[in-house]
């Protein structure tokens, strides 16, 4: 019977905490949960809030997470923290935005190409102007 378990707090962008812990408190969606070693396997969502970690021979450490998932096994606890603020509506809005942008581009396909052509012509024209200016300067 161990008195400690291994705790990992990871997000997609980095590993936030990795080490032994005696006890943690995490803000699960159903209410705060405290976890000691040899906890029954559990999987739940967590809200944004503070995870309190008691590491052996150390003071409590508080780590902020903006939501994510909590996985509990008897000797290993993993918190998969979100890096982005999540929510059904928020995700939906982002999806719509990504879709809209794509549709816009499909619609403006011809104008996009014309725009590129116009830009190329503009660059050429400015280059010509610059050349002319240089020639004039030399003459004077």
């Amino acid at each position, binding site marked *: 019977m161990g008195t400690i378990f291994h705790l*990992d707090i*990871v*997000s*997609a*962008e*980095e*590993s936030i905490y*990795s080490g032994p812990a005696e006890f943690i408190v995490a803000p*699960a*969606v*159903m209410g705060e949960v405290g976890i000691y070693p040899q906890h*029954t*396997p*559990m*999987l*739940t*969502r967590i809200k944004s809030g503070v995870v309190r970690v008691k590491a052996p021979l150390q003071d409590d450490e508080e780590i902020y997470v903006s939501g994510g*998932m909590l*996985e*509990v096994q008897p000797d290993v606890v*993993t918190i*998969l923290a*979100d*890096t*982005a*603020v*999540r929510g059904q509506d928020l*995700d*939906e*809005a*982002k*999806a*719509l*935005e*990504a*879709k809209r*942008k*794509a549709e816009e*581009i*499909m619609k403006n*396909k011809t104008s*996009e*190409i014309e725009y590129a052509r116009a830009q190329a012509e503009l660059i050429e024209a400015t280059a010509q102007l610059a050349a002319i200016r240089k020639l004039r300067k030399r003459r004077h």
Partner: protein
Amino acid sequence: MASSREIRNKIKSIKNTQKITRAMEMVAASKMRKAQDRMKKARPYGEKIRNVAAHMSKASVEYRHPFLIDRNSVKRVGIIVVTSDKGLCGGLNTNVLRRALNEIRVWGAEGEQIEVCCIGNKGLGFMSRLGVQVISQVTGLGDAPNMEKLIGAVKVVLDAYTDDHFDRVYIFYNRFVNTMKQIPVMEQLLPLTDEHMGDDNNEAKSARAPWDYIYEPEAKPVIDDIMIRYIEALVYQAVAENMASEQSARMVAMKAASDNAGNLIDELTLIYNKSRQAAITKELSEIVGGAAAV
């Protein structure tokens, strides 16, 4: 032979170009280190979530997530193409787009419809020129892959899969092997394959009695969340790898450009000196000839 003035101007302009390519090479080198760091930092999350997903898929739950179920008939394929936003990175984007194009041709020949989600400017331009239906896109990611920006575009694809609009989803990106080598790869994202669901420490676990998690509040939403995050993590990892590939490809390309510029300068300098000497010799012989005539 070109006049010495012309050659001198040419040398000057090449030197300027060389300065630019050398600066870009150094910028890419420092960015590459950071991009590689980011790629490595993203790994633990991917591994952890994979273990959870793998265990969940094997545990006896009455609910089986649609991402895990293989579909027999494939009518429509969704692909995610990861490219860079900027050019000047050698054949990086061309390689991955060529790979995608080959597959699109094969699928097209089999009568499957293709829709694409573009991450990065270069792929978007290519796909819209090609006339493939683009369903979602993200551009302007900057130097760091950003989960926040990816969520929307990936969700469009996942929703399309859940609604039976797609029967398969693939992702194309450049896998980072080392600084000199990046390979364009295609991976199947959905339905999740054994390769993605394989458990690393399978033996150790199966020795114990099979167990399942307690799901709070319920199994379905929790499993849905895990699966969506898993796919997002896979896409994120692909983007991170592609970014590291982009920077190292750019560094190599710019180094080659600087070297080529150096060679060109050497050659031109030789020609310039020769023409200068020829001019001096000519002048001297004219003076000598003139003196002799007098």
